């Protein structure tokens, strides 16, 4: 009873806080200082049509490197924990069904293509490396759902992941020497705004991030699938 009362009181407090926030909200009539800086300068300075991508990959590129590192650590720890558990022995499994098998064959190539499209066009359209990588990993997960015994080469996944990370940091360091600073995208020509090959190193860096994120998610899923007993 007391517990319930406390919970209700807590809910009421939260409700009051959010209600005051909502009632006191007035939309800004113009962009604030930071937003105006990015909105006015991105196209001219970096040549990227998608301002969010320009911020994520270049202006705040170091934060993105940190995010990718966090994801890498998570994938590495999942692999480490699951490597110590017993590998699954082959036992008979329930058939997964015609619909899932056929649907997987039809959908997986399209999902992979969409993932690649999303990260290659990160500087032009919404989305980018993280979204594209997650889409690629969902294709891998669909393959695992359709055939749980399917084996993915961990060496290949690890090679893609490490090479992408290595090239990412190398491009960042190249920016330090050839352009304005770490992860500066102007080491390559900026090109025309809105074209696929434009915005300097942004498409290259975002593609590398996409491959890295996709490989990390896929390695986590493959480790989960291969472990039978925890």
């Amino acid at each position: 009873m007391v517990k319930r009362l406390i919970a209700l009181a807590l809910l009421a407090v939260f409700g009051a806080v959010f209600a005051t926030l909502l009632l006191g909200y007035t939309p800004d009539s113009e962009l604030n200082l930071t937003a105006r800086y990015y909105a006015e300068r991105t196209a001219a300075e970096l040549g990227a049509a998608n301002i969010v991508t320009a911020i994520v990959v270049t202006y705040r590129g170091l934060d993105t490197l940190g995010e990718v590192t966090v994801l890498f650590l998570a994938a590495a720890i999942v692999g480490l924990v699951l490597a110590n558990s017993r590998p699954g022995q082959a036992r008979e499994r329930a058939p997964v069904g015609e619909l899932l098998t056929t649907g997987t064959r039809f959908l997986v190539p399209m999902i992979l293509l969409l993932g690649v499209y999303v990260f290659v066009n990160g500087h032009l359209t919404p989305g980018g490396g993280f979204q594209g990588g997650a889409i690629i990993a969902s294709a891998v997960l669909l393959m695992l759902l359709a055939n749980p015994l399917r084996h993915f080469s961990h060496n290949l996944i690890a090679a893609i992941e490490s090479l992408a990370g290595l090239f990412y940091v190398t491009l960042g360091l190249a920016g330090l020497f050839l352009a304005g600073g770490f992860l500066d995208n102007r080491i390559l020509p900026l090109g025309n705004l809105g074209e696929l090959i434009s915005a300097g190193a942004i498409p290259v860096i975002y593609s590398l991030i996409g491959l890295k994120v996709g490989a990390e998610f896929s390695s986590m899923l493959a480790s989960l699938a291969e472990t039978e007993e925890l």
Partner: protein
Amino acid sequence: MSHLLPWLTALLCFTMVVAALVAIRGKSTPIAILAAGLVSLVASVLFLILASPDVAMTEAAIGSGLTTFLFFFVLGRVRRGDHG
């Protein structure tokens, strides 16, 4: 269209709350997983209405796609473990 938008947003928020309640209170696990995925899907539509397509894509890909699939994957695994 613009005068309909607040109502559409309110409807989506209501759907989100109902789906969240179904996910928590529902008896059937698969339906709870689908309801949790629906919460993410509606959230991504709301992000789109709030003019942030990048966040909407992340929410749709990870929250609604990958997590839902992963829950089903683990559910299948747990059920197999029960039998043998």
